[in-house]
């Protein structure tokens, strides 16, 4: 994994490609690599859909090895949704396959001058870039199915649906899972629109004939991986809650805490929460012949995904994530889990970020376009997106655009990106991360990971009222580093609670590359990534005024706790003081 594949989609009559060494980007992977390339090579003030923007697709440092959980793919660009730097990541198979093919990154550059749609085929024999206009207008499922018929079921796909082709700013990039379904998405920030602007519909990956990446010290690597897996399996979150119920296990908890944003952040509890909870969903999956425990890529030992079937046992969608269930559930006042799963599938097919789209649907309800709780009307709005009608394009452009078009003043976005499923008035530390993240409102930007072990910025006493800013800073630094490894973010809990699991992760990196990484180096890497991203955003025009939550979070108390977001602006401005 020592090379970068650069594909110039705007070169002359036909796209060209070149393979080059990592060079100045050596030692980086995942988010570290995507952000470094974007910062170094993309003008911060460029239009995100212009030829100057680039789409960087990078597996993590551990991807393609036998390391458990290492199948996370980072996709970076200048975001058409936020206007800032973006790293959006996804599970599925592509990270492992791309890494086994030897690529640390695939970079799509330029922009074709003609109106053709392309597919890119990457295998051990090289790279082919072909016009395939037959893919135009297809959803992700149909497009992937066509590729599987042509190349076989063993291939892995990275694709966009109609939303990406239309360059809608809520569009995602789909990655196929173990079953070849385009169900895992790099959704946040509209990367699908950038891929669409490059006129690339599909990237087909085939690692036939390639082998697993071999560590410099196989014995040490194997031993570390074993400890790492043991840590994940014995932890209550990664060994029990996530496998049994998936991420939607959070619905009941956030609802009980009064932090479950309901009816567009008007309330903190949803009366229908238990109807759409992870517990209910898992029960239905088991009863209907689906699956409540399932991995999204090979090598996953947490297996937090699942297969959601209808009452007749037919596939509806992969198990919707908590944030998806929330954005279409409590946020929209919908308590029908079958219809939420149906919307999850439709959005996967069209290629839409389910958080951004769900929040936009809720805003359409807030505006009175359709009624809260009307799932069928919400599905109809999704079909408008698929058809590319003016209304559909508005919704498909995300929450900020939808709110502006319909004249709303309660629009839950930061830097243009929809706030996800956790009310920042109830969990204020999360609000600090929403406000200050380089990515826009992002619940994974400052994940609950090993800051206590890393001692990022020193020890923070959890019992003292101060510390929201310090905790958010430390979590953002640690998460940026973890995002570079290719590790699923859910390993964070075991890293936080079981010191030897964290040590095992470091040992895997060291034995793979023959290096001597320390926890201090991990902190330095996280800080470096955030500084690169922050600097890019500053040059793109972001100021401290962009590091704020919408005013209504300060002004409107949310029941049942009747709390507002009261972290002072001056405190928010200290997050990046490192």
């Amino acid at each position, binding site marked *: 994994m020592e090379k970068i594949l650069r594909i110039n989609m705007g070169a002359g009559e036909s796209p060209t490609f070149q393979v080059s060494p990592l060079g100045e980007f050596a030692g980086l992977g995942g988010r570290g690599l995507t952000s470094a390339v974007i910062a170094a090579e993309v003008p911060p003030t460029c239009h995100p859909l212009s030829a100057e923007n680039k789409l960087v697709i990078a597996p993590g440092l551990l991807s393609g090895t036998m390391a458990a959980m290492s199948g996370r793919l980072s996709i970076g660009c200048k975001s058409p949704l936020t206007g800032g730097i973006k790293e959006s990541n996804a599970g599925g198979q592509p990270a492992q396959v791309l890494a086994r093919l030897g690529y640390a990154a695939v970079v799509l550059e330029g922009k074709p001058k003609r109106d053709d749609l392309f597919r890119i085929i990457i295998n051990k024999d090289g790279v082919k870039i072909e016009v395939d206009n037959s893919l135009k207008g297809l959803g992700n499922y149909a497009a992937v199915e066509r590729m599987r018929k042509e190349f076989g079921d063993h291939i892995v796909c990275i694709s966009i649906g109609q939303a990406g082709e239309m360059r809608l700013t809520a569009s995602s990039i789909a990655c196929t899972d173990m079953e070849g379904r385009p169900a895992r998405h790099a959704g946040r920030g509209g990367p699908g629109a950038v891929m669409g602007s490059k006129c690339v519909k599909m990237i087909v990956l085939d690692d036939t004939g390639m082998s697993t990446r071999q560590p410099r010290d196989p014995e040490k690597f194997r031993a570390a991986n074993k400890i790492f897996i043991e840590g994940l399996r014995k932890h209550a979150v990664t060994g029990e809650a996530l496998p049994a119920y998936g991420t939607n296990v959070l619905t009941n908890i956030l609802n009980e*805490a009064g932090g479950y944003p309901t009816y567009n952040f008007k309330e903190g509890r949803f009366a229908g929460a238990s109807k759409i909870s992870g517990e209910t969903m898992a029960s239905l999956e088991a009863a209907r012949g689906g699956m409540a425990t399932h991995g999204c890529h090979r090598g996953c030992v947490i297996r937090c995904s699942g297969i959601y079937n209808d009452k007749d046992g037919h596939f509806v969608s992969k198990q919707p994530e908590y944030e998806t269930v929330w954005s279409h559930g409590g946020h929209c006042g919908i308590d029908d889990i079958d219809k939420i799963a149906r919307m999850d599938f439709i959005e996967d097919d069209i290629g839409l970020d389910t958080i951004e789209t769900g929040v936009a649907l809720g805003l359409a309800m807030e505006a009175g376009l359709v009624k809260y709780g009307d799932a069928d009307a919400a599905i109809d709005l999704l079909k408008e997106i698929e058809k590319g009608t003016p209304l559909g394009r508005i919704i498909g452009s995300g929450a900020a655009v939808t709110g502006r078009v319909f004249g709303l003043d309660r629009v839950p976005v930061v830097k243009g990106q929809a706030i996800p499923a*956790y009310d920042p008035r109830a969990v204020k530390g999360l609000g600090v991360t929403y406000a200050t993240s380089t990515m826009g409102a992002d619940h994974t930007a400052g994940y609950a990971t090993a800051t206590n072990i890393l001692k990022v910025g020193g020890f923070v006493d959890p019992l003292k009222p101060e510390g929201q800013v310090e905790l958010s800073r430390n979590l953002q630094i640690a998460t940026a580093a973890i995002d570079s490894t290719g590790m699923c973010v859910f390993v964070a809990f075991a890293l936080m609670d079981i010191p030897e699991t964290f040590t095992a992760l470091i040992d895997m990196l060291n034995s793979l590359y023959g290096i001597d990484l320390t926890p201090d180096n991990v902190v330095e890497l996280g800080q470096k990534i955030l500084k690169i991203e922050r600097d890019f955003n500053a040059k793109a025009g972001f100021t401290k005024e962009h590091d704020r939550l919408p005013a209504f979070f300060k002004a409107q108390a949310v029941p049942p706790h009747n709390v507002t977001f009261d972290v002072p602006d001056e405190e928010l401005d200290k997050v990046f003081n490192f």
Partner: protein
Amino acid sequence: MLGPHAKPLRFEINEEEAQHFALLFQHGVFIRCTTGVTIEELLVAHFGFTRDYLEKRLTTVFLDGAPVDDISEAPVGDGMALALSSSMPGLAGATLRRKGTLSSMRRSITYHHEDGRPAPVHAGHITIKLFNILAQEMGPILMKHGICIDALKLAEFIRLSPQKVQLVSAMGKNTIKDPEEFIRMLEQHASRKVEIVAG
């Protein structure tokens, strides 16, 4: 809440069937118990859980929706709602954990004993919600003490859980073979509570 003169319909189920009612606990069930004692006292002395179990498994606790850090200091008053969960994912999940390193991130909603109302010790009723793994582990034990739920909520639970209906249909003296008949009976008593006891 149960009124002082409410007479719930009473059903008994076999102990091994209790597991199939675990999902019921996410909606919240009423339980008669000693109120005014701390969460720890209630669960240890009244329901028989060990302190070791509570320490290891009861990692997320809410009292009337407020996250509780110290269960030995939080009294459960008559009419209060107690919700229990294992460790949860996500930053929010970690934040809501008892005595977690990130607990200050939700300090404005945290339960503070000094802010609570005095809770005299007497027999009363509380609402208990059990989520995720804890519903499977603790639910059957609580059912031995008897749980109460609105008749209509139970009817809806049975209707939405077709795989469990067969188990509901064999209930001691009140055996009802047909689940639909049971649902109809519950709907006829829509304003009543139903008490279920695992024997």
